[in-house]
């Protein structure tokens, strides 16, 4: 069995239990449901709310460099700290945090394989005690925007058809049957997908226990839809966080050299006047 392209970015629950008191590690929980942390979290873990602490709350954007520095300084993080991220929903928003930390150049960021679900399933301790760490003066790098796609880049990709687009939403969102995941707010005027996109729902990258599938399984999953190292890849979803999960998988587990996350995603594209839209189920991938 082949190893992941970058196995060092994953940690297992057994490893984390032995490193809970390691002062060089900072564990951070990032959940879809921001109240989960307060109910119980990994001992020593801090909690980050994706909707208020991992995005700009005035304009639609990721954290600015200054905002990230403030967040990490408050968490007592230095550039040498190993940050271990985990969360619910197969580490969906933990991957969102991972993506931003990498944009701003934090060297050692890892994800707990299986996230919160695996930690609980393995019978490990949860605590409601919120830790406190001495603040630091964290300095981030300049943002590496080669990890992020903006609208013009995606529009060019659609025209040129020389880039692979991966739509990681559910098949029903992809087809336009629904505008948002069931039960969640609709954030766009139109349903469908970006022309030329392949439908590979993000959850297919994970096992039932929340852990990531093997390298071979992941490579086959994406190869079947024509996603490989032969072309640059852009991932997108509704607001860019499910697609950050797939970005993580493609870049760090499968090892694609050129993959970016389009965080404007369908909320931007589906509201854009005049943007081309395809509807209906995905056609078979070209042989």
């Amino acid at each position, binding site marked *: 069995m082949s190893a992941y392209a970058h196995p060092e970015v994953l940690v297992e629950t057994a490893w984390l239990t032995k490193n809970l008191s390691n002062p060089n590690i900072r564990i951070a929980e990032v959940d879809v449901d921001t109240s989960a942390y307060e109910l119980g979290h990994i001992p020593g873990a801090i909690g980050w709310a994706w909707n208020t602490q991992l995005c700009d709350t005035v304009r639609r954007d990721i954290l600015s460099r200054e905002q990230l520095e403030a967040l990490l300084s408050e968490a007592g993080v230095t550039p040498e700290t190993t940050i271990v991220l985990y969360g619910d929903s197969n580490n969906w928003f933990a991957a969102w945090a991972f993506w931003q930390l990498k944009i701003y150049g934090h060297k050692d960021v890892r994800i707990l394989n299986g996230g919160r679900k695996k930690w609980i399933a393995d019978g490990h301790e949860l605590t409601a005690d919120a830790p406190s760490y001495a603040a630091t003066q964290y300095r981030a790098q300049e943002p590496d925007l080669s990890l992020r796609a903006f609208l013009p880049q995606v529009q060019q990709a659609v025209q040129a058809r020389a880039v692979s687009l991966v739509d990681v939403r559910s098949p029903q969102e992809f087809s336009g*049957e629904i505008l948002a995941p069931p039960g969640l707010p609709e954030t766009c005027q139109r349903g469908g997908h970006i022309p030329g996109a392949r439908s590979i729902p993000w959850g297919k990258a994970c096992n039932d226990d929340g852990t990531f599938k093997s390298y071979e399984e992941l490579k086959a999953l994406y190869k079947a839809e024509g996603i490989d190292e032969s072309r640059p890849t852009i991932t997108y979803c509704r607001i860019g966080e499910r697609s950050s999960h797939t970005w993580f998988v493609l870049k760090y587990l499968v090892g694609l050299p050129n993959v970016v996350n389009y965080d404007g995603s369908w909320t931007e594209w589906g509201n854009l006047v005049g943007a081309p839209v395809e509807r209906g189920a995905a056609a078979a991938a070209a042989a």
Partner: protein
Amino acid sequence: MELAGWPVRLTSYRAGDKYVCQADNVSPAACLARFAAPTLEEAESQAISKAQHLLSKTRRYAV
């Protein structure tokens, strides 16, 4: 289980002296509701009720 025509996964566990029940939509496994209560039955009942309410508002379009 299914609520309002959508598949839902319930996960229940104990946290301290309370029971927690979380209802996720299966795709994409987003948490729709999470409730903590003194009993498992109450936690599940609350989570199911809220999830049902949210899912019943999901609009479907002809494709």
